[in-house]
């Protein structure tokens, strides 16, 4: 056969198989696309998250036959953490009627925020994305539990205050360094820092790291050595975290005074060797595989060869469990949607209601097999975030250990900022549609 004929044959098969695939998905199943990044500069963080999300949903299919008897169609789309590719993924999954999307990148989340209401697909940006989207009245289709970056910052501040032996008033006169990715994610807390440093009387030192120089922070850490801040706060992602920990060790910064937002992984701390012991991060769920659900994943998914994890020890790592948490929210939202509507096969609109009615209490966590894994999650129509408590965990050389109680955010400080921000977003994007979705009383 000549090349031309091959091409004809190829396009003919493509034309024939494409509709067939779509038809198979339309019947009695729920389509859940997962936007993942196992390639590119952030693959180190993206792969465990992708595995966690994928394995949890696969377990539901393998063990329970889906949710409420309906199979889930789980499909990964590779974004490479690239906004353009992420949007391409979104366009490619849209015709298959996804019930929810998880962009896993603030850059991809932002263009989806206005689209969500038009396409009727809820967006779950778990603890990233636009903080103001916590306001359900303005953003009925966007959900970002369990806490915003602003909440996280106040939680770190309170932890520092308890280390100093008291409430936030103990921060007075302290020097706090903030090293961050000089992009929207790291810059978001800046207005909050400005406000709080005045109110609480601490001195803030800012050390921005440009996205292009994530692996070259020597100048920032030279400044740290000169300024000698009492505490350091880190807002980084990908290679920035690993480099920051390494540089901190190199400059002999006391690690127990170095506290990060919730994104560093085991590998980020491990790379710096023994010196990294004592490095702290926020977290809202347990680390380790010591839960019945994770044992089931091990049995039904990993041992059955249905997972992409590279080794058994990867199950239970921080970011793997983060993926588990993300998928738990998806699964519980679908379950709630089935409960509210009485339908087995739910749509994006139903899952949006399911997310607003989401109520995972401790009893439900035990049922899932995740007793003690995290604190209860309850969302409402007005609050799409929950502003839940997080705790501080410390690196002991091999794993992260929980070292503090759950800390609630300073909602009285963060709340007004959030309101102002949501209002400003709606004004700048006028005409921003008013919420037309009814609220299920729950």
């Amino acid at each position, binding site marked *: 056969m000549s090349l031309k004929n091959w091409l004809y044959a190829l396009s003919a098969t*493509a034309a024939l198989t494409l509709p067939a695939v779509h038809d198979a998905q339309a019947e009695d199943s729920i389509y859940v696309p997962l936007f993942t990044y196992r*390639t590119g500069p952030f693959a180190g963080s993206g792969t465990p998250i992708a595995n966690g999300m994928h394995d949890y949903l696969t377990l539901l299919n393998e063990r329970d036959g889906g949710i409420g008897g309906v199979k889930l169609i789980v499909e990964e789309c*590779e974004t490479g953490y690239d*906004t353009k590719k992420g949007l391409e993924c979104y366009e*490619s999954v849209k*015709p298959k009627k996804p019930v929810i999307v998880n962009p896993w990148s603030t850059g991809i989340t*932002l263009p989806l*925020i206005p689209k969500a209401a038009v396409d009727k697909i809820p967006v779950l940006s778990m603890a990233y994305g636009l903080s103001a989207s916590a306001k359900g009245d303005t953003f009925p289709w966007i959900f970002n539990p369990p806490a915003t970056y602003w909440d996280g910052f106040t939680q770190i501040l309170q932890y520092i205050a308890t280390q100093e032996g008291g409430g936030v008033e103990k921060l007075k006169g302290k020097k706090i360094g903030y090293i961050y990715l000089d992009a929207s994610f790291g810059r978001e807390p800046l207005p909050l820092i400005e406000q709080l440093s005045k109110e609480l009387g601490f001195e803030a030192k800012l050390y921005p790291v440009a996205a292009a120089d994530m692996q070259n922070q020597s100048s920032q850490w030279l400044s740290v050595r000169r300024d000698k801040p009492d505490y350091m706060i880190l807002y980084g992602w990908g290679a920035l975290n690993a480099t920051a920990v390494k540089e901190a060790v190199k400059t002999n910064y006391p690690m127990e005074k170095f506290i990060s937002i919730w994104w560093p992984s085991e590998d980020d701390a491990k790379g710096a060797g023994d010196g990294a012991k004592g490095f702290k991060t926020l977290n809202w769920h347990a680390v380790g595989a010591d839960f019945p659900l994770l044992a089931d994943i091990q049995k039904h998914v990993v041992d059955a060869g249905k997972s*992409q994890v590279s080794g058994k020890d990867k199950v239970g790592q921080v970011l793997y469990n983060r993926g588990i948490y993300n998928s738990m929210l998806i699964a519980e939202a679908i379950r709630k949607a089935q409960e509210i509507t009485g339908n087995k096969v739910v749509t994006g609109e139903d899952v949006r209601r399911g997310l607003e009615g989401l109520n995972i209490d401790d009893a439900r966590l035990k049922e899932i097999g995740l007793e003690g894994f995290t604190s209860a999650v309850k969302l409402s129509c007005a609050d799409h975030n929950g502003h839940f408590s997080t705790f501080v965990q410390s690196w002991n050389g091999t794993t992260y250990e929980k070292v503090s109680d759950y800390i609630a955010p300073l909602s009285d400080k963060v709340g007004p900022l959030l309101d102002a921000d949501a209002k400003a977003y709606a004004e700048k994007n006028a005409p921003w549609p008013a919420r037309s979705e009814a609220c299920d009383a729950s």
Partner: protein
Amino acid sequence: MFYRETGQFKQSYAADQAVFPILQDRLGLALILLVAFVVVPLFGNEFLLASVMVPFLILSLGAIGLNILVGYTGLLSLGSAAFMGVGAYAAYKLSTIFPGVNILVWILCSGFFAAGIGVLFGLPSLRIKGFYLAVATLAAQFFLQWCFVRISWLYNDNPSGAIEVPARTLFGLAITGPSATPVTRYLVVLVIVVVMTQLASNIVHGRIGRTWMAVRDMDIAAQLMGIRLLPAKLLAFAVSSFYCGVSGALMVFLWLGAAEPSAFDIKLSFLLLFMVIIGGLGSMIGSFFGAALIHILPIVIRGLPEALGLPIAAATVEHLTYLIVGALIIFFLIVEPHGLARLWQIAKQKLRVWPFPY
């Protein structure tokens, strides 16, 4: 047999010097336009329009802009993504300061801002050439991207640090924002790209284009013939940046819908440069070929396993795509170092004598 100019007599200089002197070429172009304006919007699905055609056209426009600078004037630039960013941020600022004016006016006006910045960074081009100029434009890339991150006035102090696209209409039809349908967006982009391509084609075929090409081929000779180098080079920077700026504004307003500064990073500059080099330096159609190869080919490769029903993981497909596209780029550059446009030329030449080659 069919592609012959026998019997087509030119009776005026204008007809002889036309961009498409052969009837079959004109028919082919008409056919392409017919497909682009009628067939694609009628039969294309949303994915084809929103994720394939709109980005392809916008990137082609950017590639034309860079081609004017690199291909026609011989000035190597690595700052094209930053100039696209200038266009995007200018369009954003203008549309938020004057929301009453139609967005298309601002998208086109944004090109002038990009042109201004382009001229500024083009000033060193009189003294430095080749790779040294590439380094100077690289400075533009880093400096401008730094501005997009640091100057909060540019993004209206949004806490997200990104520019978001407000919904705007044309004749009552939404063309930007979430409710703009892919068909509308495609047609708007298509009209702008077609008109601007026609303009660019006229410029490069006319006196200005000849000036640029003279500068490209040997600037001292061009100077001796009476071409003033600085105005010629700066004009090339201005026109090139204008095209990049409009393409950047289109990218944010009609394709992405919101953009962080990282959308205009050095990667995009390199992509545009690859499009120009692979497509063909100094060729309009080459810019389209290059954009198609760099943007559409990976999408096709990514879609193949699913279309054929092969169970390959998404990440593996991504790795394979990188491999295949990379290999194809090398293949094309070995087969024809002058780019796809040259291959197209050769094909047409062969077709002329087909089926009786001599």
